[in-house]
Protein backbone atom coordinates (compact mmCIF):
# COMPACT_ATOMS: atom_id res chain seq x y z
CA UNK A 1 0.00 0.00 0.00
CA UNK A 2 1.29 3.40 -0.98
CA UNK A 3 0.25 6.26 1.26
CA UNK A 4 0.80 9.90 0.41
CA UNK A 5 0.72 12.11 3.47
CA UNK A 6 0.87 15.89 3.51
CA UNK A 7 2.76 17.90 6.10
CA UNK A 8 2.64 21.64 6.53
CA UNK A 9 4.90 23.94 8.44
CA UNK A 10 2.89 26.22 10.72
CA UNK A 11 3.79 28.96 13.16
CA UNK A 12 4.36 27.56 16.64
CA UNK A 13 1.05 27.97 18.50
CA UNK A 14 3.08 28.66 21.68
CA UNK A 15 4.60 31.81 20.18
CA UNK A 16 2.67 35.06 20.32
CA UNK A 17 2.09 36.29 16.76
CA UNK A 18 2.72 39.84 15.60
CA UNK A 19 1.20 41.39 12.51
CA UNK A 20 3.63 42.64 9.85
CA UNK A 21 4.04 46.32 8.96
CA UNK A 22 1.92 45.87 5.81
CA UNK A 23 -1.00 44.57 7.94
CA UNK A 24 -1.41 41.73 5.43
CA UNK A 25 1.11 39.28 6.78
CA UNK A 26 2.55 37.86 9.99
CA UNK A 27 5.88 39.33 11.14
CA UNK A 28 8.40 36.55 10.60
CA UNK A 29 11.24 37.76 12.84
CA UNK A 30 11.76 35.45 15.81
CA UNK A 31 8.99 33.21 14.57
CA UNK A 32 9.24 29.50 15.34
CA UNK A 33 7.71 26.80 13.21
CA UNK A 34 6.37 23.37 13.98
CA UNK A 35 4.73 20.56 12.07
CA UNK A 36 0.96 21.17 11.88
CA UNK A 37 -0.47 19.03 14.73
CA UNK A 38 -3.25 17.64 12.52
CA UNK A 39 -0.66 16.56 9.95
CA UNK A 40 1.34 14.89 12.71
CA UNK A 41 -1.72 12.75 13.35
CA UNK A 42 -1.97 12.00 9.61
CA UNK A 43 1.69 10.91 9.54
CA UNK A 44 1.18 8.69 12.60
CA UNK A 45 -1.86 7.06 10.99
CA UNK A 46 0.01 6.59 7.72
CA UNK A 47 2.87 4.85 9.54
CA UNK A 48 0.46 2.56 11.41
CA UNK A 49 -1.36 1.66 8.18
CA UNK A 50 1.95 0.99 6.45
CA UNK A 51 3.16 -1.19 9.32
CA UNK A 52 -0.08 -3.18 9.14
CA UNK A 53 -0.47 -3.50 5.37
CA UNK A 54 3.15 -3.18 4.16
CA UNK A 55 4.07 -0.59 1.54
CA UNK A 56 5.46 2.90 1.92
CA UNK A 57 4.67 6.32 3.31
CA UNK A 58 5.63 9.34 1.22
CA UNK A 59 5.39 12.72 2.91
CA UNK A 60 5.01 15.88 0.87
CA UNK A 61 5.25 19.54 1.82
CA UNK A 62 5.06 22.91 0.06
CA UNK A 63 7.03 25.86 1.38
CA UNK A 64 10.41 27.62 1.63
CA UNK A 65 13.59 25.55 1.55
CA UNK A 66 13.71 25.16 5.34
CA UNK A 67 10.48 23.15 5.52
CA UNK A 68 12.91 20.28 5.08
CA UNK A 69 13.01 20.37 8.92
CA UNK A 70 9.33 19.39 9.10
CA UNK A 71 9.81 16.75 6.42
CA UNK A 72 12.79 15.42 8.38
CA UNK A 73 10.58 15.22 11.48
CA UNK A 74 8.03 13.13 9.56
CA UNK A 75 10.85 10.92 8.25
CA UNK A 76 12.14 10.54 11.82
CA UNK A 77 8.66 9.44 12.90
CA UNK A 78 8.94 6.69 10.31
CA UNK A 79 7.90 7.91 6.85
CA UNK A 80 9.96 6.32 4.06
CA UNK A 81 10.72 9.23 1.75
CA UNK A 82 9.78 12.84 1.15
CA UNK A 83 8.89 15.29 -1.58
CA UNK A 84 9.43 18.98 -1.10
CA UNK A 85 7.86 21.54 -3.39
CA UNK A 86 9.98 24.62 -2.88
CA UNK A 87 7.93 27.80 -2.96
CA UNK A 88 8.66 30.85 -0.85
CA UNK A 89 5.85 33.15 -1.99
CA UNK A 90 2.19 33.37 -1.06
CA UNK A 91 0.04 30.34 -1.44
CA UNK A 92 -3.65 29.57 -0.87
CA UNK A 93 -5.44 26.25 -0.33
CA UNK A 94 -6.33 26.05 -4.02
CA UNK A 95 -2.68 26.37 -5.05
CA UNK A 96 -1.70 23.65 -2.58
CA UNK A 97 -4.45 21.32 -3.86
CA UNK A 98 -3.33 21.84 -7.48
CA UNK A 99 0.30 21.09 -6.59
CA UNK A 100 -0.75 17.97 -4.68
CA UNK A 101 -2.83 16.89 -7.68
CA UNK A 102 0.38 16.73 -9.73
CA UNK A 103 2.22 14.81 -7.02
CA UNK A 104 -0.70 12.39 -6.82
CA UNK A 105 -0.58 11.81 -10.57
CA UNK A 106 3.15 11.08 -10.39
CA UNK A 107 3.02 8.81 -7.35
CA UNK A 108 -0.39 7.17 -7.77
CA UNK A 109 -0.89 6.37 -4.07
CA UNK A 110 -3.72 4.23 -2.70
CA UNK A 111 -4.59 6.73 0.01
CA UNK A 112 -3.92 10.41 0.59
CA UNK A 113 -3.87 11.35 4.27
CA UNK A 114 -4.01 15.00 5.29
CA UNK A 115 -4.68 16.97 8.47
CA UNK A 116 -8.25 18.27 8.40
CA UNK A 117 -6.92 21.81 8.78
CA UNK A 118 -3.73 23.68 9.46
CA UNK A 119 -3.67 25.55 12.75
CA UNK A 120 -2.31 28.74 11.20
CA UNK A 121 -4.81 29.70 8.49
CA UNK A 122 -7.63 27.43 9.63
CA UNK A 123 -9.16 27.10 6.13
CA UNK A 124 -10.07 23.35 6.12
CA UNK A 125 -9.98 23.39 2.32
CA UNK A 126 -6.91 21.71 0.84
CA UNK A 127 -8.21 18.15 1.41
CA UNK A 128 -11.69 18.56 -0.08
CA UNK A 129 -10.28 20.63 -3.00
CA UNK A 130 -7.73 17.93 -3.80
CA UNK A 131 -10.41 15.21 -3.76
CA UNK A 132 -12.54 17.34 -6.07
CA UNK A 133 -9.73 18.01 -8.58
CA UNK A 134 -8.81 14.32 -8.62
CA UNK A 135 -12.42 13.15 -8.78
CA UNK A 136 -11.75 10.92 -5.77
CA UNK A 137 -14.00 10.01 -2.85
CA UNK A 138 -13.21 11.78 0.38
CA UNK A 139 -13.75 11.15 4.06
CA UNK A 140 -13.03 14.13 6.26
CA UNK A 141 -12.36 14.44 10.04
CA UNK A 142 -11.32 10.83 10.53
CA UNK A 143 -11.56 9.90 14.18
CA UNK A 144 -12.17 6.63 15.99
CA UNK A 145 -14.79 5.10 18.18
CA UNK A 146 -12.26 4.29 20.87
CA UNK A 147 -10.47 6.06 23.69
CA UNK A 148 -6.95 7.42 23.35
CA UNK A 149 -6.17 5.53 26.56
CA UNK A 150 -7.13 2.17 25.08
CA UNK A 151 -4.85 -0.83 24.57
CA UNK A 152 -5.36 -0.50 20.79
CA UNK A 153 -3.90 2.99 21.00
CA UNK A 154 -0.97 1.76 23.12
CA UNK A 155 -0.33 -0.97 20.55
CA UNK A 156 -0.50 1.60 17.75
CA UNK A 157 -3.46 0.00 15.96
CA UNK A 158 -4.64 2.25 13.11
CA UNK A 159 -8.02 3.95 13.60
CA UNK A 160 -8.80 3.78 9.88
CA UNK A 161 -9.69 0.27 8.71
CA UNK A 162 -8.67 -0.80 5.23
CA UNK A 163 -9.93 -4.04 3.68
CA UNK A 164 -9.14 -4.65 0.03
CA UNK A 165 -9.95 -1.39 -1.74
CA UNK A 166 -12.35 -0.10 0.88
CA UNK A 167 -11.52 2.18 3.79
CA UNK A 168 -13.83 2.49 6.77
CA UNK A 169 -13.62 5.86 8.44
CA UNK A 170 -15.26 6.89 11.67
CA UNK A 171 -15.87 10.61 11.73
CA UNK A 172 -17.08 13.03 14.33
CA UNK A 173 -20.23 14.76 13.19
CA UNK A 174 -22.08 17.40 15.21
CA UNK A 175 -24.72 14.99 16.48
CA UNK A 176 -22.48 11.99 17.11
CA UNK A 177 -20.31 9.46 15.32
CA UNK A 178 -20.75 8.70 11.65
CA UNK A 179 -19.17 5.70 9.91
CA UNK A 180 -18.31 5.93 6.21
CA UNK A 181 -16.97 3.46 3.71
CA UNK A 182 -14.97 4.93 0.84
CA UNK A 183 -13.59 3.28 -2.26
CA UNK A 184 -9.81 3.62 -2.62
CA UNK A 185 -8.00 5.59 -3.83
CA UNK A 186 -9.45 8.29 -1.61
CA UNK A 187 -8.53 11.43 0.28
CA UNK A 188 -8.92 11.14 4.05
CA UNK A 189 -8.42 14.07 6.42
CA UNK A 190 -7.60 13.46 10.06
CA UNK A 191 -9.11 14.83 13.25
CA UNK A 192 -7.62 15.17 16.73
CA UNK A 193 -8.89 12.02 18.38
CA UNK A 194 -7.62 9.59 15.73
CA UNK A 195 -4.34 8.80 17.50
CA UNK A 196 -1.51 10.11 19.66
CA UNK A 197 1.50 10.78 17.41
CA UNK A 198 4.76 9.15 18.46
CA UNK A 199 7.89 11.01 19.51
CA UNK A 200 10.69 10.36 17.02
CA UNK A 201 13.22 8.07 18.69
CA UNK A 202 16.92 8.91 18.70
CA UNK A 203 17.92 6.07 16.32
CA UNK A 204 15.10 7.00 13.92
CA UNK A 205 16.19 10.64 13.91
CA UNK A 206 19.62 9.50 12.76
CA UNK A 207 18.13 7.14 10.17
CA UNK A 208 15.98 9.96 8.78
CA UNK A 209 19.16 11.77 7.81
CA UNK A 210 19.77 9.17 5.12
CA UNK A 211 16.25 9.17 3.67
CA UNK A 212 15.54 10.86 0.36
CA UNK A 213 13.92 14.30 0.02
CA UNK A 214 13.09 14.93 -3.64
CA UNK A 215 12.67 18.56 -4.68
CA UNK A 216 10.14 20.08 -7.06
CA UNK A 217 8.96 23.60 -7.74
CA UNK A 218 5.53 24.83 -8.91
CA UNK A 219 7.22 25.53 -12.26
CA UNK A 220 8.67 22.05 -12.58
CA UNK A 221 5.20 20.63 -11.87
CA UNK A 222 3.62 23.10 -14.32
CA UNK A 223 1.25 24.64 -11.79
CA UNK A 224 0.36 28.33 -11.57
CA UNK A 225 -0.02 29.01 -7.86
CA UNK A 226 -0.97 32.68 -8.06
CA UNK A 227 -3.34 32.98 -5.10
CA UNK A 228 -7.06 33.26 -5.83
CA UNK A 229 -7.70 34.41 -2.30
CA UNK A 230 -6.45 37.90 -1.54
CA UNK A 231 -5.64 38.84 2.06
CA UNK A 232 -6.92 42.35 2.71
CA UNK A 233 -5.98 42.77 6.33
CA UNK A 234 -4.91 40.95 9.49
CA UNK A 235 -6.12 42.12 12.87
CA UNK A 236 -5.42 40.82 16.35
CA UNK A 237 -8.52 39.78 18.30
CA UNK A 238 -9.62 42.42 20.82
CA UNK A 239 -7.98 42.01 24.23
CA UNK A 240 -10.14 40.02 26.61
CA UNK A 241 -11.75 42.01 29.37
CA UNK A 242 -11.40 40.89 32.95
CA UNK A 243 -14.15 38.59 34.20
CA UNK A 244 -16.53 39.21 37.08
CA UNK A 245 -16.30 37.44 40.41
CA UNK A 246 -19.54 36.31 41.95
CA UNK A 247 -20.10 35.49 45.61
CA UNK A 248 -22.34 32.47 45.18
CA UNK A 249 -24.40 30.46 42.73
CA UNK A 250 -27.49 32.58 43.36
CA UNK A 251 -25.66 35.69 42.17
CA UNK A 252 -24.33 33.79 39.17
CA UNK A 253 -27.83 32.68 38.20
CA UNK A 254 -29.15 36.23 38.64
CA UNK A 255 -26.42 37.62 36.40
CA UNK A 256 -26.96 34.93 33.76
CA UNK A 257 -30.63 35.84 33.79
CA UNK A 258 -30.58 39.64 33.94
CA UNK A 259 -27.23 40.60 32.36
CA UNK A 260 -26.10 37.82 30.06
CA UNK A 261 -29.70 36.83 29.33
CA UNK A 262 -28.63 33.29 28.49
CA UNK A 263 -31.21 31.65 30.75
CA UNK A 264 -34.71 32.68 31.63
Amino acid at each position, binding site marked *: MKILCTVKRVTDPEVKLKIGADQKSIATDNLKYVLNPFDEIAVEEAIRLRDKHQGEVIVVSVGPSDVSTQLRTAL*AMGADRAIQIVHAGELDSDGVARLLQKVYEQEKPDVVLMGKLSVDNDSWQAGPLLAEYLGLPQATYASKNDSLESDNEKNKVPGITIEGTTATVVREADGGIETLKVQLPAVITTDLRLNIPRYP*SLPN*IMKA*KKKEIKEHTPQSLGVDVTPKVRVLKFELPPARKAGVKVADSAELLAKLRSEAKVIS
Partner: protein
Amino acid sequence: MTLSEEQTLLVKSVRDFCEKKVKPFARQWDKEQRFPKDVVRELGHLGVLGIVVPEALGGSGLGYVEYALVCEEVARYDGSLALTVASHNGLGSGHLGTFGTDAQKKKFMPMLARGEILGAWGLTEPGSGSDSAGMKTTAVKQGSKWILNGTKMFITQGTVAGCYVVLAVTNKEQRHRGITAFMLEPGMKGFTTRPIHDKLGMRSSDTAELIFENVELTDEHVVGEVGSGFIDTMKILDRGRISIAALGVGIIRGALEESLRYSKDRQAFGKPISDFQAIQWKLAAMATDYEAARLLTLRAAALADAKQPFSKEASMAKLFASEAAMRAATEAVQIHGGYGYTQEFPVERYLRDAKLLEIGEGTSEVQRMVIARHLLA
Protein backbone atom coordinates in the same frame (compact mmCIF):
# COMPACT_ATOMS: atom_id res chain seq x y z
CA MET B 1 27.74 26.36 19.40
CA THR B 2 25.21 25.59 16.67
CA LEU B 3 23.37 22.31 16.63
CA SER B 4 22.94 20.20 13.52
CA GLU B 5 19.44 19.52 12.15
CA GLU B 6 19.49 16.03 13.71
CA GLN B 7 20.63 17.36 17.08
CA THR B 8 17.86 19.97 16.97
CA LEU B 9 15.26 17.29 16.20
CA LEU B 10 16.61 15.08 18.94
CA VAL B 11 16.43 17.85 21.52
CA LYS B 12 12.90 18.70 20.40
CA SER B 13 11.75 15.11 20.62
CA VAL B 14 13.06 14.71 24.19
CA ARG B 15 11.67 18.12 25.16
CA ASP B 16 8.19 17.38 23.76
CA PHE B 17 8.22 14.07 25.60
CA CYS B 18 9.24 15.70 28.90
CA GLU B 19 6.72 18.56 28.58
CA LYS B 20 3.93 16.02 28.38
CA LYS B 21 5.08 13.03 30.40
CA VAL B 22 7.48 14.44 32.98
CA LYS B 23 6.77 18.09 33.78
CA PRO B 24 3.23 17.57 35.11
CA PHE B 25 4.27 14.71 37.42
CA ALA B 26 7.79 15.52 38.63
CA ARG B 27 6.55 17.24 41.79
CA GLN B 28 4.42 14.25 42.78
CA TRP B 29 7.22 11.75 42.14
CA ASP B 30 9.52 13.86 44.30
CA LYS B 31 6.98 14.09 47.09
CA GLU B 32 6.23 10.37 47.10
CA GLN B 33 9.85 9.35 46.42
CA ARG B 34 8.45 7.28 43.59
CA PHE B 35 10.69 5.93 40.84
CA PRO B 36 8.64 6.47 37.62
CA LYS B 37 9.10 3.02 36.10
CA ASP B 38 6.64 3.48 33.21
CA VAL B 39 8.19 6.75 32.07
CA VAL B 40 11.67 5.23 32.28
CA ARG B 41 10.45 2.40 30.06
CA GLU B 42 9.12 4.94 27.56
CA LEU B 43 12.46 6.73 27.61
CA GLY B 44 13.89 3.38 26.54
CA HIS B 45 11.57 3.32 23.51
CA LEU B 46 12.77 6.81 22.70
CA GLY B 47 16.36 5.58 22.55
CA VAL B 48 17.42 7.65 25.55
CA LEU B 49 18.74 4.69 27.55
CA GLY B 50 21.30 3.60 24.98
CA ILE B 51 22.52 6.92 23.65
CA VAL B 52 26.17 6.06 23.03
CA VAL B 53 25.65 2.31 22.59
CA PRO B 54 26.37 1.25 18.97
CA GLU B 55 23.34 0.45 16.82
CA ALA B 56 24.60 -3.11 16.38
CA LEU B 57 24.08 -3.61 20.13
CA GLY B 58 20.60 -2.07 20.09
CA GLY B 59 21.61 1.48 20.98
CA SER B 60 21.17 4.85 19.33
CA GLY B 61 24.81 5.02 18.17
CA LEU B 62 25.25 8.67 19.07
CA GLY B 63 28.07 10.61 20.69
CA TYR B 64 28.73 12.42 23.96
CA VAL B 65 27.48 15.75 22.62
CA GLU B 66 24.06 14.18 22.03
CA TYR B 67 24.35 12.48 25.42
CA ALA B 68 24.91 15.86 27.08
CA LEU B 69 22.04 17.46 25.14
CA VAL B 70 19.62 14.73 26.21
CA CYS B 71 20.72 14.91 29.88
CA GLU B 72 20.24 18.70 29.86
CA GLU B 73 16.77 18.37 28.37
CA VAL B 74 15.56 15.81 30.93
CA ALA B 75 17.18 17.73 33.81
CA ARG B 76 15.34 20.87 32.75
CA TYR B 77 12.16 19.11 33.89
CA ASP B 78 13.26 16.57 36.48
CA GLY B 79 16.71 16.20 38.05
CA SER B 80 15.90 12.76 39.45
CA LEU B 81 14.90 11.33 36.09
CA ALA B 82 17.95 12.91 34.48
CA LEU B 83 20.12 11.27 37.14
CA THR B 84 18.57 7.93 36.19
CA VAL B 85 19.33 8.57 32.51
CA ALA B 86 22.86 9.75 33.26
CA SER B 87 23.86 6.99 35.67
CA HIS B 88 22.27 4.21 33.62
CA ASN B 89 23.93 5.34 30.38
CA GLY B 90 27.21 6.50 31.80
CA LEU B 91 28.03 4.23 34.71
CA GLY B 92 26.28 0.84 34.65
CA SER B 93 25.94 0.24 30.93
CA GLY B 94 28.89 2.53 30.24
CA HIS B 95 31.29 0.27 32.13
CA LEU B 96 29.93 -2.96 30.65
CA GLY B 97 29.71 -1.52 27.13
CA THR B 98 33.28 -0.21 27.23
CA PHE B 99 35.16 -2.92 29.10
CA GLY B 100 32.86 -5.95 29.04
CA THR B 101 33.64 -9.14 27.12
CA ASP B 102 31.87 -9.77 23.81
CA ALA B 103 29.69 -12.38 25.49
CA GLN B 104 28.68 -9.97 28.29
CA LYS B 105 27.96 -7.20 25.81
CA LYS B 106 25.96 -9.42 23.51
CA LYS B 107 23.87 -10.71 26.37
CA PHE B 108 23.20 -7.46 28.25
CA MET B 109 23.80 -4.40 26.08
CA PRO B 110 20.72 -4.69 23.85
CA MET B 111 18.46 -5.03 26.91
CA LEU B 112 20.24 -2.15 28.66
CA ALA B 113 20.18 0.06 25.57
CA ARG B 114 16.45 -0.44 25.08
CA GLY B 115 15.78 0.11 28.76
CA GLU B 116 14.33 -3.37 29.26
CA ILE B 117 16.71 -3.61 32.19
CA LEU B 118 18.53 -0.80 33.96
CA GLY B 119 22.18 -0.65 34.85
CA ALA B 120 23.71 0.19 38.24
CA TRP B 121 27.31 0.73 39.22
CA GLY B 122 28.82 -0.01 42.62
CA LEU B 123 31.90 1.98 43.57
CA THR B 124 31.16 4.02 46.70
CA GLU B 125 31.09 2.27 50.08
CA PRO B 126 29.91 3.28 53.54
CA GLY B 127 33.55 4.07 54.43
CA SER B 128 34.95 5.24 51.09
CA GLY B 129 33.75 7.87 48.64
CA SER B 130 36.35 10.22 47.21
CA ASP B 131 39.07 7.78 48.32
CA SER B 132 37.55 5.05 46.21
CA ALA B 133 40.70 2.93 46.15
CA GLY B 134 40.23 2.57 49.90
CA MET B 135 37.27 0.25 49.36
CA LYS B 136 36.74 -2.75 51.64
CA THR B 137 34.66 -5.01 49.39
CA THR B 138 36.73 -8.05 48.46
CA ALA B 139 36.56 -10.78 45.87
CA VAL B 140 38.71 -13.75 46.80
CA LYS B 141 39.59 -16.44 44.29
CA GLN B 142 38.75 -19.95 45.54
CA GLY B 143 39.44 -22.53 42.87
CA SER B 144 37.46 -21.46 39.83
CA LYS B 145 35.21 -19.17 41.89
CA TRP B 146 35.40 -15.61 43.13
CA ILE B 147 33.78 -15.03 46.52
CA LEU B 148 32.44 -11.48 46.91
CA ASN B 149 31.92 -9.86 50.32
CA GLY B 150 31.22 -6.29 51.31
CA THR B 151 28.79 -3.37 51.05
CA LYS B 152 28.28 -0.61 48.48
CA MET B 153 26.57 2.64 49.39
CA PHE B 154 24.40 5.27 47.63
CA ILE B 155 24.06 3.17 44.49
CA THR B 156 21.75 4.73 41.90
CA GLN B 157 19.20 2.22 40.46
CA GLY B 158 20.24 0.02 43.40
CA THR B 159 16.89 -1.74 43.81
CA VAL B 160 15.59 -1.51 40.24
CA ALA B 161 18.60 -2.56 38.15
CA GLY B 162 18.83 -5.76 36.12
CA CYS B 163 22.59 -5.60 35.76
CA TYR B 164 25.22 -4.38 38.24
CA VAL B 165 28.89 -3.63 37.76
CA VAL B 166 30.62 -3.76 41.14
CA LEU B 167 34.22 -2.92 42.04
CA ALA B 168 36.06 -5.08 44.53
CA VAL B 169 39.59 -5.54 45.88
CA THR B 170 41.16 -8.66 44.43
CA ASN B 171 44.71 -7.95 45.57
CA LYS B 172 45.14 -5.75 48.62
CA GLU B 173 48.91 -5.23 48.29
CA GLN B 174 48.62 -3.73 44.83
CA ARG B 175 46.11 -1.15 46.10
CA HIS B 176 44.60 0.64 43.05
CA ARG B 177 46.11 -1.94 40.71
CA GLY B 178 44.46 -4.67 42.70
CA ILE B 179 40.84 -3.74 42.03
CA THR B 180 38.58 -5.68 39.65
CA ALA B 181 35.09 -5.07 38.24
CA PHE B 182 32.46 -7.82 38.40
CA MET B 183 29.05 -8.13 36.80
CA LEU B 184 26.12 -9.19 38.97
CA GLU B 185 22.47 -9.88 38.40
CA PRO B 186 19.67 -9.41 40.92
CA GLY B 187 18.64 -12.51 42.82
CA MET B 188 22.14 -14.02 43.01
CA LYS B 189 22.59 -15.97 46.23
CA GLY B 190 24.00 -13.71 48.95
CA PHE B 191 23.26 -10.46 47.06
CA THR B 192 20.69 -8.20 48.70
CA THR B 193 19.75 -4.54 48.42
CA ARG B 194 18.36 -2.06 50.91
CA PRO B 195 16.61 1.07 49.60
CA ILE B 196 17.78 4.45 50.91
CA HIS B 197 14.93 6.92 51.45
CA ASP B 198 14.56 10.46 52.77
CA LYS B 199 17.25 12.03 50.62
CA LEU B 200 17.36 15.84 50.48
CA GLY B 201 16.88 15.88 46.71
CA MET B 202 16.84 13.59 43.69
CA ARG B 203 14.12 11.88 45.65
CA SER B 204 12.48 9.99 42.80
CA SER B 205 15.73 8.43 41.64
CA ASP B 206 16.34 5.01 43.14
CA THR B 207 19.20 4.81 45.64
CA ALA B 208 20.25 1.77 47.63
CA GLU B 209 22.83 -0.05 49.63
CA LEU B 210 24.13 -3.26 48.05
CA ILE B 211 25.13 -6.06 50.39
CA PHE B 212 27.26 -9.04 49.32
CA GLU B 213 27.56 -12.06 51.58
CA ASN B 214 29.66 -14.80 50.00
CA VAL B 215 28.27 -14.15 46.53
CA GLU B 216 29.78 -16.79 44.24
CA LEU B 217 31.05 -15.46 40.91
CA THR B 218 33.13 -16.97 38.11
CA ASP B 219 35.65 -15.60 35.61
CA GLU B 220 32.70 -14.99 33.28
CA HIS B 221 31.56 -12.28 35.68
CA VAL B 222 34.85 -10.37 35.50
CA VAL B 223 34.42 -7.13 33.51
CA GLY B 224 37.68 -6.09 31.84
CA GLU B 225 41.00 -7.41 33.15
CA VAL B 226 41.62 -8.65 36.68
CA GLY B 227 43.33 -5.70 38.39
CA SER B 228 42.24 -3.08 35.82
CA GLY B 229 38.99 -2.16 37.61
CA PHE B 230 40.26 1.07 39.15
CA ILE B 231 41.89 2.39 35.97
CA ASP B 232 38.72 1.60 34.00
CA THR B 233 36.67 3.29 36.70
CA MET B 234 38.57 6.55 36.27
CA LYS B 235 37.68 6.55 32.56
CA ILE B 236 34.03 5.88 33.34
CA LEU B 237 34.00 8.72 35.88
CA ASP B 238 35.52 11.16 33.35
CA ARG B 239 32.59 10.53 31.00
CA GLY B 240 30.10 10.45 33.85
CA ARG B 241 31.18 13.96 34.79
CA ILE B 242 30.04 15.23 31.39
CA SER B 243 26.53 13.99 32.16
CA ILE B 244 26.51 15.43 35.69
CA ALA B 245 27.63 18.76 34.19
CA ALA B 246 24.76 18.47 31.70
CA LEU B 247 22.36 17.91 34.60
CA GLY B 248 23.64 21.16 36.09
CA VAL B 249 23.07 22.94 32.77
CA GLY B 250 19.48 21.65 32.68
CA ILE B 251 18.78 22.76 36.25
CA ILE B 252 20.19 26.24 35.56
CA ARG B 253 17.88 26.51 32.56
CA GLY B 254 14.92 25.40 34.64
CA ALA B 255 15.74 27.93 37.35
CA LEU B 256 16.14 30.69 34.76
CA GLU B 257 12.97 29.91 32.81
CA GLU B 258 10.85 29.66 35.95
CA SER B 259 12.36 32.89 37.29
CA LEU B 260 11.72 34.74 34.02
CA ARG B 261 8.11 33.64 34.02
CA TYR B 262 7.51 34.47 37.67
CA SER B 263 9.29 37.82 37.69
CA LYS B 264 7.32 39.09 34.71
CA ASP B 265 4.09 38.09 36.40
CA ARG B 266 4.64 38.96 40.06
CA GLN B 267 3.80 42.55 40.96
CA ALA B 268 5.42 44.65 43.68
CA PHE B 269 5.12 48.39 44.22
CA GLY B 270 2.80 48.58 41.24
CA LYS B 271 4.98 46.91 38.63
CA PRO B 272 6.33 43.49 37.70
CA ILE B 273 9.39 42.61 39.78
CA SER B 274 11.34 42.05 36.54
CA ASP B 275 11.36 45.86 36.24
CA PHE B 276 13.67 46.05 39.25
CA GLN B 277 17.39 46.03 38.68
CA ALA B 278 17.92 43.77 41.68
CA ILE B 279 15.98 41.03 39.88
CA GLN B 280 17.44 41.83 36.46
CA TRP B 281 20.98 41.32 37.74
CA LYS B 282 20.07 37.92 39.11
CA LEU B 283 18.48 36.92 35.79
CA ALA B 284 21.50 38.17 33.85
CA ALA B 285 23.88 36.19 36.05
CA MET B 286 21.79 33.03 35.70
CA ALA B 287 21.62 33.35 31.91
CA THR B 288 25.37 33.90 31.68
CA ASP B 289 26.04 30.93 33.95
CA TYR B 290 23.78 28.83 31.75
CA GLU B 291 25.70 29.65 28.58
CA ALA B 292 29.10 29.23 30.24
CA ALA B 293 28.20 25.89 31.84
CA ARG B 294 26.71 24.64 28.59
CA LEU B 295 29.76 25.59 26.54
CA LEU B 296 32.14 23.92 29.01
CA THR B 297 29.99 20.78 28.98
CA LEU B 298 29.62 20.55 25.22
CA ARG B 299 33.33 21.22 24.80
CA ALA B 300 34.25 18.32 27.07
CA ALA B 301 31.70 16.18 25.19
CA ALA B 302 33.08 17.21 21.78
CA LEU B 303 36.61 16.31 22.93
CA ALA B 304 35.37 12.89 24.08
CA ASP B 305 33.69 12.38 20.68
CA ALA B 306 36.94 13.34 18.94
CA LYS B 307 38.77 10.77 21.11
CA GLN B 308 41.01 13.46 22.57
CA PRO B 309 41.91 13.83 26.26
CA PHE B 310 38.98 15.39 28.10
CA SER B 311 39.49 14.48 31.77
CA LYS B 312 40.44 18.02 32.85
CA GLU B 313 37.70 19.60 30.74
CA ALA B 314 35.07 17.20 32.09
CA SER B 315 36.09 18.04 35.65
CA MET B 316 35.96 21.76 34.90
CA ALA B 317 32.51 21.43 33.31
CA LYS B 318 31.22 19.35 36.22
CA LEU B 319 32.67 21.70 38.83
CA PHE B 320 31.39 24.87 37.19
CA ALA B 321 27.97 23.57 36.13
CA SER B 322 27.15 22.01 39.51
CA GLU B 323 28.15 25.11 41.48
CA ALA B 324 26.37 27.36 38.97
CA ALA B 325 23.25 25.18 39.33
CA MET B 326 23.33 25.73 43.10
CA ARG B 327 23.68 29.48 42.57
CA ALA B 328 20.89 29.57 39.99
CA ALA B 329 18.51 27.49 42.09
CA THR B 330 19.25 29.59 45.19
CA GLU B 331 18.54 32.79 43.26
CA ALA B 332 15.41 31.29 41.73
CA VAL B 333 14.05 30.58 45.21
CA GLN B 334 15.00 34.11 46.23
CA ILE B 335 13.19 35.62 43.23
CA HIS B 336 10.10 33.56 44.04
CA GLY B 337 10.22 34.83 47.65
CA GLY B 338 7.87 33.07 50.06
CA TYR B 339 6.33 31.04 47.25
CA GLY B 340 9.77 29.81 46.26
CA TYR B 341 10.14 28.28 49.72
CA THR B 342 7.04 26.12 49.15
CA GLN B 343 6.36 23.20 46.87
CA GLU B 344 3.84 25.29 44.96
CA PHE B 345 6.67 26.20 42.59
CA PRO B 346 9.33 23.78 41.35
CA VAL B 347 12.34 25.94 42.23
CA GLU B 348 12.78 24.55 45.75
CA ARG B 349 13.08 21.10 44.17
CA TYR B 350 15.75 22.41 41.78
CA LEU B 351 17.69 23.66 44.80
CA ARG B 352 17.49 20.30 46.59
CA ASP B 353 18.36 18.40 43.39
CA ALA B 354 21.25 20.70 42.48
CA LYS B 355 23.07 19.99 45.76
CA LEU B 356 23.68 16.39 44.73
CA LEU B 357 25.60 17.57 41.67
CA GLU B 358 28.30 19.05 43.92
CA ILE B 359 28.67 15.65 45.62
CA GLY B 360 27.96 12.78 43.23
CA GLU B 361 30.55 11.36 40.80
CA GLY B 362 33.31 13.28 42.52
CA THR B 363 32.76 16.16 44.95
CA SER B 364 33.66 19.72 43.97
CA GLU B 365 36.79 19.27 46.09
CA VAL B 366 37.81 16.21 44.10
CA GLN B 367 37.17 18.06 40.82
CA ARG B 368 39.49 20.87 41.94
CA MET B 369 42.07 18.25 42.87
CA VAL B 370 41.80 16.62 39.42
CA ILE B 371 42.06 19.96 37.63
CA ALA B 372 45.07 21.03 39.69
CA ARG B 373 46.76 17.68 39.10
CA HIS B 374 46.43 18.27 35.34
CA LEU B 375 47.78 21.81 35.68
CA LEU B 376 50.79 20.71 37.70
CA ALA B 377 51.59 17.54 35.74
